[in-house]
């Protein structure tokens, strides 16, 4: 009886090891993703201005696509990622629906005239560093 139980245990263990060996490799996880933000800057605003903008370069050094889905600013009521596009000869600006995708290895630049962060309800003017 004991021999039979031991044999069945060994067979089960062997089956488990074979199944594990033949399993699909684990998909990349969020932890394997690396986002690098570079050259973040903004422009000073005049006194009384209620909106400001932010720009930066984002690089996805990971192996899976990622998406910028939210932005906040310490000096604004709220912030959004906006896109600028030419429509019927008129430059329009609107919130970027669905976020901003960054493919693996891709670098995306948020810059004046293109995608950028809009900050609404500034609590104070944005001031440049004194030199």
């Amino acid at each position, binding site marked *: 009886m004991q021999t039979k139980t031991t044999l069945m245990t060994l067979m089960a263990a062997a089956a488990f090891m074979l199944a594990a060996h033949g399993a699909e490799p684990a998909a990349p996880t969020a932890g394997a993703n690396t*986002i690098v933000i*570079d050259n973040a800057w903004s422009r000073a605003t005049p006194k009384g201005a209620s909106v400001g903008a*932010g720009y930066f370069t984002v690089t996805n050094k990971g192996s899976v696509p990622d998406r*910028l889905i939210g932005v906040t600013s310490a000096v604004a009521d709220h912030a959004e990622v906006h896109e600028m596009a030419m429509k019927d000869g008129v430059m329009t600006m609107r919130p970027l629906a669905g976020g901003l995708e960054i493919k693996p290895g891709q670098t995306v630049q948020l810059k004046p005239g293109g995608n950028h962060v809009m900050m609404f309800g500034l609590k104070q003017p944005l001031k440049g560093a004194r030199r």
Partner: protein
Amino acid sequence: MSGTLTFEKAGTVAIEYAVQGIGGPPPRSGAGNTMQMPGGGAMRMH
């Protein structure tokens, strides 16, 4: 001027904007130091 960026997979990354003077040129890219953030993110310091 600080803020955060939230990514679908990498999570939330802190960001510090260098504020340029009104009418001044945008900063040259490549300046500053990169700092790795918890959760796989990083940011460039100015």
